[in-house]
């Protein structure tokens, strides 16, 4: 059963699926589509051409689909299923290209996703994570509080971003990164374990990281890339890592 508060303002042209709950004082604009089973709490603003996937929840004071320039919201924002968008999160709509959020992400209090940013699936972003314009965040990324992912930067899958980090260049997958300027500190073994990676894979990745990033550095070592590639049987995840680093995923971008 649909449950829309009589104190909510929902434009007539908004497409609201069944089973959607909308709390009081929430505004849903005319270009918005909300999927089945979404829970929108009170005092939320959803505007622009925004699509919110099924079973997502939006908490009080969150703002989705606004235009960064403050002009009339005509950008696009595509949000997948089962995302949790917590209090005070702002997701801007992209004009040149839509702002995209995959499935099953958790954006904690006060996080910001700027226009045209792309966030993958299953990410967890702690309070006040700032994902800037056009940044790309791959799947299963974890972020501690207050990091800034700068415009156009790519964050590799399974990577953990430490608190207060300024991610000012591309960072590889599987890593723990920290600091400003950002540097690679090691392999995100805990997250990999939780995501079902075997001991052997994790060990291979650890060795590769030691070669590539020499303990802790921002730049992948070019000679080490060649050395690793010359090895015969390469672990598929290590191959993925090298490819990412080659395409500018390891500080070269």
């Amino acid at each position, binding site marked *: 059963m649909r449950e829309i508060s009589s104190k909510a303002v929902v434009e007539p042209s908004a497409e609201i699926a069944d089973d959607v709950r909308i709390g009081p004082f929430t505004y849903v604009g005319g270009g918005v589509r909300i999927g089945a089973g979404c829970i929108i709490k009170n005092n939320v603003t959803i505007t622009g051409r925004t699509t919110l996937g099924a079973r997502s929840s939006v908490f009080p004071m969150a703002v989705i689909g606004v235009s960064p320039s403050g002009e009339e919201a005509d950008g696009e924002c595509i949000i997948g299923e089962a995302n949790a968008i917590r209090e005070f999160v702002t997701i801007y709509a992209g004009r040149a290209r839509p702002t995209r959020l995959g499935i099953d992400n958790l954006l904690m209090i006060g996080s910001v996703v700027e226009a045209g940013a792309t966030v993958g699936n299953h990410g967890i972003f702690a309070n*006040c994570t700032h994902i800037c314009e056009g940044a790309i965040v791959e799947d299963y990324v974890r972020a501690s*509080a207050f990091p800034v992912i700068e415009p156009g930067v790519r964050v590799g899958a399974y990577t953990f971003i430490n608190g207060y980090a300024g991610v000012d260049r591309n960072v590889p997958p599987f890593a723990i990164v920290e600091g400003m300027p950002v540097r690679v500190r090691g392999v995100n073994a805990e997250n990999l374990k939780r995501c079902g990676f075997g001991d052997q894979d994790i060990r291979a990745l650890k060795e590769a990281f030691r070669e590539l990033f020499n303990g802790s550095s921002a730049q992948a070592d070019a000679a080490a890339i060649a050395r690793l590639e010359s090895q015969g049987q390469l672990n598929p995840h290590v191959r993925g890592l090298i490819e990412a680093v080659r395409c500018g995923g390891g500080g070269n971008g």
Partner: protein
Amino acid sequence: MAELKVLREIDPSARVAPDASVGPYCVVGPNVTIGPRTRLVGRVSVSGHTTIGSDNVFEAGCVLGAVPQDLKYAGGPTLLHIGHRNRFGRFVTAHIGTESGGYLTRIGDDNVFMDGSHIAHDCYVDDHVCFGRNVMLAGHIRVHTGAVIEELSGVHHFVTIGRYSRVGARTPVRRDVPPFTEFLSAESDSTPAVRGIYEAGISRAALPSEEEKDLRRALHELFDNEFALQTRIEQLFNLGVEGEVAELCKFCQQSLRGVYGRYRELFRGRIPPEARQYLPREQWAQIAREMP
């Protein structure tokens, strides 16, 4: 006043004291209790099983009692308790507890939380604590009486912040902060650590002069000394310490016993001792029955 009623939503089963004030665009959920003279300025949301005492002020946009951001939360009727005479700035958020973390988030009396602060699930904030803007507490944290946490600092899960200590601005706190000390980074990128005695804290604690002298000496011996902390604590214990100094030594000892300098890590996945102390009796009895 008829007009105002339209602009807010108070669930009929919420218990709001007659002289509490609930401003425009506020939303008060069914299991909420709001004490006398507490003021919700505007656009404040209160949900969950939340109890708020008397004489609190919540500025515009606070969100209280929302479900925890912890993925272990299973949707149970966990609690948020807020005491008396607290001041909450704009956009402050406080969450209810989790089942595995002790069912309760507790905020004591006479605290100040500036704009954007966040008090997460299962935190215990005592009295006379001051939070600067955008201070973020992760879960399961204990903040003792009189602590000051400055702007933009973030506190790691399971950390304990000692009595009358100070955490400098923009400091990531990943280990316990001993009482009466200053915890900050020396330079912008150095590891934050104890960097001195928090004088204002000592004077706010208003200790008897003899005890204050002992405390200062103990602080110097513990933190201005080349020996391992463990050795120094033992030396002090051997001298026979009491009062505030004994508490200080006990605090440091517990932090050493914990994991990564965090005493409360020992309660990971368990009900912490504070739950027994602060949970309503019936609630505690029920949890104790369910405990393995």
